[in-house]
């Protein structure tokens, strides 16, 4: 029932969700969603509040496991392996599928320790020099290095909101993930900090498969090449971002992007 545009380029799916439904207790929060996530493009999930886009995002790295009443049906594959199968180690999965949250949530540790956290627990760096290199590389990729290189030992919570969010992105990059999920990463930031994050998403595009949930249609239009529109737990329409915003095929999509509701 999802309308999928038929003019999409053929891409290889990094992640593939098939007939996914999510329940919170008896309540169905996501209804039968199927979507392929490519590495080549940034995918945006848009839709009104409570439409399930964040819930669906959180099923992609099994963060919904932390909610006891949540239950997932259907299959989600990462490079062809079902992430909900018993053979999948959730710790490995989350190292491969990183996540950035709505509110910047740096640990109350130093900037250096925030970045080194992931590589340390996953044993990715051997010795101090290698760890230093990982920290520098991650901060550079997140465009934060020049701002913090002289105060790596300061607390991560002392940075500004935008810097904190870039720190969180650097933290996610540090474990060398394949997919980065971003759950409204700019909703707590001012326009200038938002512009920097969007620039960063552009730079990271292609290296990682990126999925971004956003409230702002302008943001989706700016940073993504693929857009999925969610409404009441269903994925209504999926296509190229330009097509979704200029020539949507579904009435509900049309209504939402023209501001009739949402």
């Amino acid at each position, binding site marked *: 029932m999802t309308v999928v545009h038929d003019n999409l380029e053929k891409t290889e799916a990094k992640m593939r969700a098939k007939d996914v439904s999510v329940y919170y207790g008896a309540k169905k929060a996501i209804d039968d969603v199927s979507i392929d996530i490519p590495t080549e493009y940034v995918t945006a999930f848009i839709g009104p509040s409570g439409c399930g886009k964040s819930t669906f995002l959180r099923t992609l790295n099994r*963060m919904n496991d932390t909610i006891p009443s949540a239950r997932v049906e259907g299959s989600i594959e990462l490079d062809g392996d079902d992430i909900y199968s018993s053979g999948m180690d959730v*710790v490995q*999965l*989350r*190292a491969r599928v990183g996540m950035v949250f709505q509110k910047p*949530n740096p640990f*109350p540790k130093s900037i250096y320790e925030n970045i080194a*956290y992931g590589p340390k*627990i996953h044993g990715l760096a051997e010795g101090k020099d290698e760890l230093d290199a990982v920290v520098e590389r991650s901060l550079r990729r997140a465009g934060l290095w020049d701002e913090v290189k002289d105060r790596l030992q300061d607390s991560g919570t002392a940075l500004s909101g935008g810097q904190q969010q870039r720190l969180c992105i650097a933290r996610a990059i540090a*474990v060398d993930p394949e997919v980065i999920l971003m759950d409204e990463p700019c909703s707590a930031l001012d326009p200038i900090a938002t512009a920097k994050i969007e620039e960063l998403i552009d730079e990271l595009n292609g290296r990682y498969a990126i999925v971004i949930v956003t409230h702002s249609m302008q943001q989706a239009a700016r940073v993504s090449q693929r857009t999925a529109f969610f409404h009441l737990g269903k994925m209504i329409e999926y296509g190229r971002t330009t097509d979704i915003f200029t020539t949507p095929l579904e009435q509900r999509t049309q209504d939402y992007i023209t501001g009739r509701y949402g």
Partner: protein
Amino acid sequence: MSPLILLLLAIGLGLVGWLAGRARAWSFRKSGPTRLASLPNYHGWYVALWIAIPVLIFVAVWSAIAPELVMQHVLAQPAAADLPAFGFQRQTILNEARAVATGDAMGVFNAEARGLVEPFREAIGRYDIVGIVVALVIAFAAGAFSFLRLRPDFRARNRVEKSVMAILLVASLVAILTTLGILASLVFETVRFFGMVSPLDFLFGTFWSPDPMSNAANPDGSRYGAIPLFWGTIFIGAIIAMVVAIPLGLMSAIYLTQYAPGRLRTWVKPALEILAGVPTVVYGYFAALTVAPFIRDLALAAGMSNPSSESALAAGLVMGVMIIPFVSSMADDSIAAVPAAMRDGSLAMGATHSETIRRVLVPAALPGIVAGVMLAISRAIGETMIVVMAASTAANLTANPLEAMTTVTVQIVAMLTGEGSFDHPATLSAFALGFVLFMVTLALNFIALRVVKRFREAYE
């Protein structure tokens, strides 16, 4: 007897004032189209408070001075002329006569008192009447004053609310003033003690053996060295007890906040808090009758020739168990206060649950945990009953937990219940010890509150 009557009188008159004020306010409303500035109830309360508070103040003052007035009256009687001049005997006779007069005693023991019963009875009766009359006059005057101030536009509500606030303020001041009073009395006796024994001998001496039978005028300062007591207190309360309480409390807090299913948590948490409600004397029994002999047997089995049955270890272990709820509930609160975003952030990095707890949650909650530990220490070193029952009274400067040791609180009890007279330095030393203990626990509480406050700000 008479203060109680005056108290009931004040309440009764207040009720009358309430009804009268309210009725008057209602009549304003009936007689004219004007809107009352305050509801009739507030007019009632305004009058009631104006009556009750002055009367209660009078009752308080009167119950303090009335017995003295009665005494003056009796001593002026001719029957009092042949009382013995010696204070103690004279007081006994007067007290006896008063007790018979008020009906507290059936008859007199000293013959001299018999003649005084009647004057006492007469004086008490007379001053009772005086008190009631004065109370009535005050109530009437205050009631009339406030009643006549009532007008339709009178803001009774504002005044009532102000006086309620004042009453609340007084209630909160009672606790603070009591603390200051305790401190003042401690300081006074401590200064007296330090007038007899040098503070240097007391704070830095290593031999504690006050002799309450020695010459009070010329105490031997070298017997008042409190270091062994401070050491015993710290060793039992801050070291042994904490070695038990910190890991157990912390681990149970982690289990309860992170792993326990909701239903188990609703049972275990209150059960743990019951530990905090067990009377300390019961812990004392447990320490003295169960744990201490067990440890003694262990020490015997381990080859110690003559182990003490009052070991520091027994008291410290039981005290540690007693303190567990303090540590665990503070740790529980501060771990639960770490934002869920922090936990999610760590889990999303692929950290396991236990890595998240170890490397993110506990470090983030550390200030709260530290504060809980400090409150627990201040509680442990001030704890008396367990150590009185399970620790020894012999001062002993050693690091062997199997030996007998004593604590500051044990010595305070021993000195105050000893045979020395009240102004002997051995007795007064209890106040100096209490003062030191008070200052240390005060400092610990103060630091703990500061730490908690800083940590609260960290996430806001």
